[in-house]
């Protein structure tokens, strides 16, 4: 596959602090690459270095086969960026904001008008065209923010935590919009600290912590690193110490945590763990109101790799 971005041995320091530590990765045409990590892991710094907004001490960055520099205007023309902060003019309407940013890339007025209308339809804010940003809800504002970044139909799109502080409906709308962009041929780099988003959206994921790559691969490949088969959660009323001890002693069980009424059992292996557990609970007359099984998540991977939760 054709490489759109090549990053080699990228390092960025703030005095003593290593914000990015020897990062190397590639991004391929037409994929959504997720940069997943907790706050302060170096995701945004990486994006800012890639965009040549920040200096870096070591390494090289190539975009579309060319070195990325502040004056790489031919490269910038192909790039769209949606930052974490909403970057729009308070004094301009929704339409004017999109038209302004699109106009910095597209000279032809008719083409620009067409592009602006298209992106307004894509992010579904047609009825708010004449609204000012302060008249929009948080979700609509995010959609406007995205529209401003992609109206010029870029080939490469950077999305830096675009769903922070967004309601679920708007989040779904944004995520489906991003998939559409990928389906239309764009290559996307998506940073997030929401593992669910990374799982749903990304073709490949890089997990970052303290400026280093901990792991990279597809969601399934990464989950294998978690070293667990499944997690079963049971909502119980009363649980004797003996039952708890029995469950802990099952060979396949990795850990058992009882917190208030929730019993979470992590299995390292085993194929019929849920069925066996239900049998055991019946046999020992343990009453429960809910029981469900989960496959390992990226949070488990992160926990396995770093010993802490992704959202710590």
């Amino acid at each position, binding site marked *: 596959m054709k490489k759109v971005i090549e990053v080699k041995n990228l390092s960025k320091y703030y005095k003593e602090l290593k914000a990015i530590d020897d990062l190397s990765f590639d991004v391929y045409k037409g994929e959504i690459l997720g940069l997943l990590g907790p706050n302060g892991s170096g995701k*945004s710094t990486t994006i800012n270095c890639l*965009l040549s*907004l920040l*200096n870096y001490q070591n390494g090289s960055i190539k975009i579309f086969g060319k070195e990325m520099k502040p004056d790489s*205007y031919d490269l910038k023309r192909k790039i769209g960026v949606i930052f974490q902060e909403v*970057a729009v*003019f308070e004094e301009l309407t929704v339409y004017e904001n999109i038209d302004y940013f699109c106009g*910095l*890339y597209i000279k032809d007025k008719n083409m620009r008008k067409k592009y602006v209308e298209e992106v307004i339809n894509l992010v579904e804010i047609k009825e708010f065209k004449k609204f000012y940003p302060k008249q929009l809800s948080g979700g609509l504002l995010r959609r406007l923010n995205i529209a401003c970044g992609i109206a010029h139909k870029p080939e490469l799109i950077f999305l830096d935590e675009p769903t922070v502080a967004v309601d679920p409906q708007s989040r779904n709308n944004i995520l489906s919009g991003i998939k559409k962009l990928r389906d239309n041929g764009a290559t996307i780099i998506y940073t997030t600290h929401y593992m669910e988003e990374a799982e749903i959206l990304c073709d490949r994921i890089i997990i970052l912590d303290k400026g280093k790559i901990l792991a990279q691969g597809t969601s399934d490949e990464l989950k294998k690193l978690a070293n667990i088969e499944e997690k079963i959660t049971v909502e119980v009323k009363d649980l004797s110490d003996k039952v708890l001890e029995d469950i802990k002693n099952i060979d396949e069980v990795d850990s058992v945590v009882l917190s208030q009424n929730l019993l979470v059992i992590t299995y390292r292996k085993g194929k019929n763990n849920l069925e066996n557990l239900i049998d055991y609970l019946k046999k020992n007359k343990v009453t429960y109101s809910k029981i469900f099984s989960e496959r390992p998540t990226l949070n488990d991977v992160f926990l396995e790799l770093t010993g802490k939760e992704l959202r710590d």
Partner: protein
Amino acid sequence: MFWHNFKYSIKTLARNKMLLFWTFAFPIILGTLFSMAFSGVENGEKLDIINIAIVESEYFNDDEIFNETFKNLSDENNESRLFNITYTDLDNSKQMLEDEKIVGYLEFKENDVDITVKSSGVNETILKLVVDEVISQKKMIETLITKEIENTISSGNFNVDYDQIYNNVINVIASSEANLNNISSDNLSYIMIEFYTLIAMAALYGGVISMFITNYKLANMSAVGKRTSITPIHKGSMLLGSLLASYFVQLIGMGLLFLYTIFVLNVDYGSNLLLVILLALVGSLAGLALGVFVATIFKTNENTKMGILIAFTMLCSFLSGMMGITMKYVVDKNIPILNIINPASMITDGFYSLYYYDTLDRFYFNLISLIIFSALMIFISYSGLRRQKYDSI
């Protein structure tokens, strides 16, 4: 692309209520307040006779030009009489000043005149301006005499008639339009000084507009700046469009201020209106350049930059004598370089020079100084901007 940016910059500025207030409304409100507060003073004003003292000394007695000028300006038969002069010694002058019997006294030294006043105000300002003017005329006379002598000698006549030359020169000066009595004419009254102060302040307020729009172009200052920094537009071109838009908006504000003061407040800018407008336009450019300079050079947040800009503008205004012209005199006397590099001083000095000097040399000197100041600020800002990378976003 340039016009696209220019058009939207104008829209952005024109819809920002805070900027509109400070640029358009505030100077007009202030002008109205000045007019209301001082109209009574203005109507009843034919300047009062100002009590001053001159310290008797051989230097004063030997200085014919000063002697004659002050004799004339204190002549009871002179309709434009300005001063009531007490000739006395230094101690008595000090005591009279302390007792507020005089607004100030002059002490003549070998090649200098010291003005001592107790406070700042219109009368003190006039005293200072008269002394400045006489010094200026003295220099002119000396230059003319030197030239006359040179001409006489170069024509082969070595019997120089100094009295004749002196009289010729005095006649030239007497027939020139410049006349110290202009000071007591109704062109530059206290209220006019206030209006010129207002125009200078409004001009320097252009810095607020340019700083606002420049912040929108800097990645480390705003999210919009970050977004514009990754567009395929050259920083200089982007900034130029925005700054021209700022200047355009500033000029509209300045135009409204002139129209309002002329047609509503009936302010008479005299025969120098076009020059006053010209200086206001160039002063606005200096204000704009100052705003860009503060926005691009200082690596701090927007509020701090605003604080720096306002504080600097106020300091410049203070030193230029906007809150009392005595300060301008003190600076002139002790640190003259400050008034040469101070944009507020260049503006006010330019305005006053239209009234107090018989040629436009000083006016053009201030005008050119403002242009150089603006160019320098913009050059430094642009150089800084070109090198700028954002160490922390």
